């Protein structure tokens, strides 16, 4: 990265039409993201026709800004209504909603926007310096490494998302089990489909997510054991970004760690970004001085996870730009748009026209910067949502539940899934089973299975193949160490308690 390239890219970005595209994309993304069930992918797909009439950089800037904003804005319904906007924000929806219940909605949202923006900007800065290097490393990941990463994600999730790891494990297993519904990915045999064509396509995580988090919350309200927000929140508590500098000073390590985890995992094609938020949240709980506060509306995990998913968002573009291998639907659409504009992503792009990829990364910078003012407005607006009485807001949540789950495939099947998931989620929560692991199980289940089968086929059925490659062996060792550590510390706790009782 030469200074000249940086200067050229900068002058490309600070053109009126590029900045206008970023602003427009950000406002649009804010609305899409704040509506439960409408995803960043959908936001991007709807933008494609608009890009016909635009030059290459503004088109990409539009996509970049709208996804950045949509992912962050997904935290708004998560915190206020307990409906996570994306699987990534499902990692900390419980945490931020707990803050809202305490009357600290403004604080939860401020943390969301501030640390998303900071994480995103640090992530973009890291990418500017190490982008091609990160891409090269991510290209060395085979199914063996992806398998261990998926295990690691599932494991941390089960361990941190509730007070009882065994119950977390049960929830996780349920999610993984539901993810096996549909056609088997290797040979196309139907599993648990009961002859239903709709089940052959599998169970999508979005209606499940809406049902388990939002619909079950309504059920809890009906059975009147739901926690209600304390008295109407004071306006003072909704002063956006109040007290944030103190938080930065108190948890600088969380911010840095979250950003690092996000930027490095995000570069892996596939589920990197979603996984990053969960792993960051898990790491935060592990290394926190006050792990007992997690899940009850504590800032630390929120900071780490929310900065991780925004950092991961920008690095997901690296494999797409450097090798033309898009990791998710958003970058696939963006790669398509670039090709239509005669810009071919790939190593030649970096060699022949390095200012273009640099300009794209700079767009992330600007888009994340915009999160501060737009977040300010969104938090101010959130006050209006909180002032609405509960008997008005419940039907609104219900409408959101139905719309969001219907919009996935435009079928009532999704609504049915949402209702069933809501009932299951309600029963699970009454019995202290955490529901967030179900979502991650559903998202990572196919990843786990596919990479396990590929690896077994490569190793010709030899389980030791998972330890043949250095990185894979290292990841495997980490997984085993976490398992052993958990089991040993449990046994030790139990025997200590036993001894105390004896004495």
């Amino acid at each position: 990265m030469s200074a000249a390239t940086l200067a050229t890219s900068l002058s490309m970005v600070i053109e009126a039409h590029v900045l206008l595209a970023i602003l427009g994309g950000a406002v649009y993304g804010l609305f899409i993201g704040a509506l439960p069930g409408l995803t960043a992918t959908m936001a991007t797909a709807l933008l494609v026709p608009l890009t016909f009439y635009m030059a290459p950089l503004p088109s990409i800037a539009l996509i970049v800004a709208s996804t950045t904003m949509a992912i962050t804005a997904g935290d708004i319904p998560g915190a206020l209504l307990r409906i996570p906007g994306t699987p990534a924000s499902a990692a900390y929806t419980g945490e931020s909603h707990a803050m809202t219940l305490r009357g600290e909605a403004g604080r939860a949202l401020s943390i969301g926007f501030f640390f998303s923006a900071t994480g995103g900007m640090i992530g973009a800065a890291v990418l500017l310096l190490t982008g091609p290097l990160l891409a090269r490393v991510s290209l060395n990941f085979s199914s063996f490494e992806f398998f261990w990463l998926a295990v690691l994600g599932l494991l941390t999730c089960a361990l941190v998302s509730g007070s009882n790891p065994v119950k977390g494990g049960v929830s996780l297993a349920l999610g993984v089990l539901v993810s096996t519904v549909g056609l088997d990915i290797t040979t196309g045999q139907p599993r648990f489909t009961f002859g239903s064509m709709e089940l052959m396509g599998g169970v999508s995580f979005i209606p499940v997510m809406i049902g388990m988090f939002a619909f079950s919350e309504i059920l809890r309200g009906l059975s009147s054991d739901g926690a209600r927000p304390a008295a109407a929140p004071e306006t003072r508590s909704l002063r956006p970004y109040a007290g944030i500098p103190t938080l930065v000073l108190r948890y600088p390590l969380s911010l840095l760690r979250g950003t690092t985890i996000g930027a490095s995992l995000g570069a892996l094609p596939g589920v990197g970004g979603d996984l990053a938020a969960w792993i960051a949240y898990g790491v935060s709980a592990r290394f926190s001085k006050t792990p007992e506060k997690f899940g009850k509306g504590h800032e630390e995990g929120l900071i780490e996870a929310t900065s991780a998913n925004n950092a991961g968002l920008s690095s997901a573009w690296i494999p797409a730009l450097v090798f033309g291998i898009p990791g998710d639907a958003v970058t696939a659409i963006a790669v398509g748009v670039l090709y239509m504009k005669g810009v071919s992503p790939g190593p030649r792009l970096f060699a022949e026209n390095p200012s273009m990829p640099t300009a794209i990364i700079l767009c992330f910078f600007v888009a994340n910067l915009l999160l501060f003012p737009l977040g300010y407005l969104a938090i101010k607006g959130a006050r209006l949502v909180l002032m609405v009485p509960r008997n008005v807001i419940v039907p609104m949540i219900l409408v959101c539940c139905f719309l969001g789950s219907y919009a996935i495939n435009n079928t009532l099947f999704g609504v049915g899934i949402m209702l069933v998931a809501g009932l299951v989620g309600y029963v699970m929560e009454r019995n202290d089973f955490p529901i967030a692991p179900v979502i991650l199980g559903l998202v990572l289940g196919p990843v786990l299975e596919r990479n396990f089968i590929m690896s077994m086929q490569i190793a010709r059925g030899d389980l030791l193949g998972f330890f043949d490659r250095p990185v894979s062996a290292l990841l495997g060792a980490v997984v085993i160490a976490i398992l052993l550590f958990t089991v040993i510390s449990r046994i030790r706790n139990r025997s200590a308690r036993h001894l105390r009782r004896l004495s």
Partner: protein
Amino acid sequence: MFHQGSARGCLALCMAGAMVFAGAGSAFADWPEKAVTVIVPWSAGGGTDATARAVATELEEIFGQPFNVVNRTGGGGLVGHSTIATSPADGYTLGVITIESTMFEAQGIPGVTPADFAYIGRFNADPIAINIAADAEYSDAAGLIDTVRADPGAVAASGANRGGLSHLAWIGLLDRLDIDPTAANWVASDGSAPALQQLASGAIDVVSTSPAEAQSLVDAGQARTVALISSERSALYPDLPTTTELFDTDWSPLPFRGIAAPTGTPDEVVSKVEAALKEITEDSAFQDFMAARGFSVAYQDAATFEQTVTSAAEGFGSAMSSAGLAQ
């Protein structure tokens, strides 16, 4: 009205019937009146996805309505193809079908047969190439085949699910070179993008996929395309030797990409899209896009496309039984 005479009543009825019929016909004269869904049976980022998105974008421009690309992956393309086949035949669901749609029947997998589609047109056909890792011990197709011959199980190949076209092309070649296809190690993957990632990471040795899909990795110095599994050289890659030249075989599986709709889709819609597809394939911007990504443009109209699909189904049926995959 009826009491005035049965003849007039009958005429009135006929006229009413004709009007209803005409009404039904003209309902599609204005097609499309809303967004059209284009189902792609393969993962986002693969070759089918990229070309489908390009075609959808052009269709959008021609018809002035959104053509939304939806990836329905899984089951080696079965999920997506059967989604296309079972969608309502109202003209608002189209799909991009690939050669896999002709294979499920022979494999004994229920759900999709070539008769389930109304064919609209083909826009692309590219031969499959053999791609190897850049740091492999051998540097050409002959060296690779020698290594496979020594121990067929030691060379891991991938590119699609088991029984997918990439798989058939590879084992079909081995079969013709007197290497036992059932001993070869095939790693089932969900499309070519994950397989290429595996190749780059050094976990597998061969990816059989179109040279275009491997292009970025080849440019990055991570992979090398060594031969086309075909009987004729490609205009886009004139320097690539064919397996027919190298090994004196006659194996030339030619995968296609085309647009189809559920059977029963109104003829008006089929002919409108057919005409639009012809226009798109003649458009220089589309041709430039395809060439830039290394895809050839190979248009066939509805009738010819249907014929191609039918004969491919027959050819692959026999290829699969020789490899022990048919049921």
